[in-house]
């Protein structure tokens, strides 16, 4: 991994990354052997809250939507990002693709800084490599454009496939399971599942390194959802693209991702390989989140950890651990000192002073 050299040449070294020996928080132990395609360093986004008098507006506080996220995404992996509404998942994804400017911190795509790059050519290349798939297939396609125009526009902007752009569009449509004649149709002529295929085609036609999929299947019915998930998995393997998969449906995340990061109020509280996190979570928030998923099997008896209260507002956050007011094993230390992401066991990293033990956590048992 060459992160320390990059920072030195750019001359904006954050202390944390000065030494090569330092392990990147949350990354697996074999990270050295893998290629990092995307790296987020201490990313923060604060939205100011303003009061308006007749003449002046005054900032009275900040909504800390994303508050210090370090994350590495490796080539060819699917990283699931889970958390409740308002925890900053969407703000994070907008910052990654460059739609929102971070308050502090950097997004590195390989060796290029997404937000500070000034060279137009490199900027164009960055946008080509960071593509997004949106939640709502009804609103994310231009209703007045034929599918071929929607898919052709990025090719023209980026001057790709110059000799046969229309052919490239047709090949892409075939890949996502649509036919040639669909190219001449308008979005309203398609069903929700087909529209999401077009959204996927629009992202993949750029042959990106990274795709950010923000709730790509939550607007679809289960039987349609299954076909989109199958398609995403096939194309991900075929094109070896890395995906950040955001979803609130945890069983979907479990199904598609290799690694999973759990977010709570703008921070990553736990990260690790999907199976390990889902079976033996370490952070109390992950424990309650995973135990709350309804199980489609009446024979499984689940130990439910039901949280009291709601997610607090990200405006006036208490000092110490953000989860402390709702935590079932809160200690005095939790209110004083904010925990940082540290290695717990196996490949699991969590931000907790009193993480759960592997032996203690057994979330479900089969009924007699």
């Amino acid at each position: 991994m060459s992160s320390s050299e990059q920072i030195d040449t750019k001359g904006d070294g954050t202390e944390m990354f000065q030494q090569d020996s330092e392990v990147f928080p949350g990354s697996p132990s074999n990270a050295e052997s893998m290629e990092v395609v995307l790296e987020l360093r201490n990313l923060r986004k604060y939205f100011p809250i303003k009061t308006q008098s007749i003449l002046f507006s005054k900032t009275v506080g900040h909504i800390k939507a994303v508050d210090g996220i370090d994350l590495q995404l490796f080539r060819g992996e699917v990283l699931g990002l889970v958390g409740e509404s308002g925890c900053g998942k969407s703000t994070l994804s907008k910052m990654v693709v460059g739609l929102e400017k971070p308050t502090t911190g950097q997004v590195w795509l390989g060796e290029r800084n997404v937000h500070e790059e000034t060279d137009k050519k490199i900027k164009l290349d960055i946008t080509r490599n960071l593509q997004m798939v949106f939640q709502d297939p009804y609103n994310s396609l231009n209703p007045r454009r034929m599918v071929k125009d929607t898919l052709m526009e990025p090719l023209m902007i980026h001057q790709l496939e110059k000799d046969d752009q229309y052919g490239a569009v047709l090949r892409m449509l075939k890949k996502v399971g649509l036919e040639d004649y669909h190219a001449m149709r308008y979005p309203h002529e398609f069903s929700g599942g087909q529209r999401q295929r077009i959204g996927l085609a629009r992202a993949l036609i750029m042959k990106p390194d990274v795709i950010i999929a923000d709730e790509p299947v939550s607007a679809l019915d289960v039987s349609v959802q299954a076909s989109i998930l199958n398609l995403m998995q096939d194309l991900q393997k075929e094109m070896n693209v890395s995906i950040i998969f955001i979803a609130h449906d945890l069983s979907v995340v479990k199904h598609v991702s290799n690694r999973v990061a759990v977010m709570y109020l703008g921070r990553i509280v736990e990260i690790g390989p999907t199976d390990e996190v889902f079976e033996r979570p370490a952070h109390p928030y992950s424990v309650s989140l995973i135990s709350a998923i309804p199980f489609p099997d009446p024979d499984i008896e689940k130990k439910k950890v039901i949280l009291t209260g709601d997610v607090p507002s990200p405006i006036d956050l208490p000092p110490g651990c953000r989860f402390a007011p709702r935590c079932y094993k809160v200690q005095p230390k939790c209110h004083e000192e904010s925990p940082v992401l540290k290695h717990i066991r196996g490949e699991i990293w969590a931000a907790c002073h009193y993480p759960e033990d592997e032996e203690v956590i057994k979330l479900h048992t089969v009924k007699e």
Partner: protein
Amino acid sequence: MSHESEDRILDVRDIYTYFRTEAGVVKALDGVSFDIRYNESVGVVGESGCGKTVTSRSILQILPKNGEVVDGQILYKGVDLLALTPSEMRTVRGKEIALLFQDPLSALNPVMSIREQMIDVIMLHKFLTEEEAEALAVEMMHAVGIPEADKRIFDYPHQYSGGMRQRILIARALALQPSLLIADEPTTALDVTIQAQVLDIIKRMREEHKLSMMLITHNLGVVAENTDRIHVFYGGRVVESGPTREIFKDPHHPYTIALLESIPSFKKGKGRLATIPGSVPQLIDPPKGCRFHPRCAYVTEMCKKRPPAVKIKTDHYVACHHVDRVIKRDINADYDPNLGYAIDNL
């Protein structure tokens, strides 16, 4: 199905609900029959457009103007609701059968305080003074776990979070001590941890008030954990009904099997998911006979006739001509395309 009706709180017999639209008549419910017993929790499952919500609205007769129940019987405690006059029906809604909506924000009036909205409903159905109604409202809010209910009752809907609003609706619905609760996707708009809280409250209130419940949802996990029996809807008809455990362990209808195989689940690995070819039928011009036949792998000429409900075991009915041909498999095992229920394509 058998006809002893003493143990049934609700017995829906062969109802047809049609909507008149510019494009033609939409046959939203086409001969739906099912029942709910006393103290029982029954799940109604299906994808969007299968008639789940229309069923609940037909029972309470709160259909939009262009909709009408054209035929059938809805027996509630032995009385046919369709034969009641509008004023008699008003005493049933809320007092006898309560409805819980999917979106708790649009079910509350944003410019009225919670107190006004609660006591309005209570005073309409119960002979109480305003003070008594308020005391009852506070008591119910307290029971569903709203802290400082006596102060918070003066707040407006926007001052509550999504989970809190749904609790208020539960409190308001149960203040009138109904016998049947129809919950139409009560937790779909909520986060998982809040969903668990709300379902926990509903479960507790059901036990305390001896409520029967009809839980409408598309989330199969919620149904598995919260119901005793399930009715699976497809294209405006019931395709399979039976005890929850049986439906999950031993489904017989090709649609039920496909539906269960298409959900990603905890036990399954990362293999491919089963998909159902084609899409949900248009109800203006639905397929003849079995409505699932254009998407079904077991289709034969016979499927163009309407399939009868075949009894598999006690309480377990399947509407399919080919019950004995359908291959049954462990729904928690990884999907194997070679065993294939369906052709894996668009």
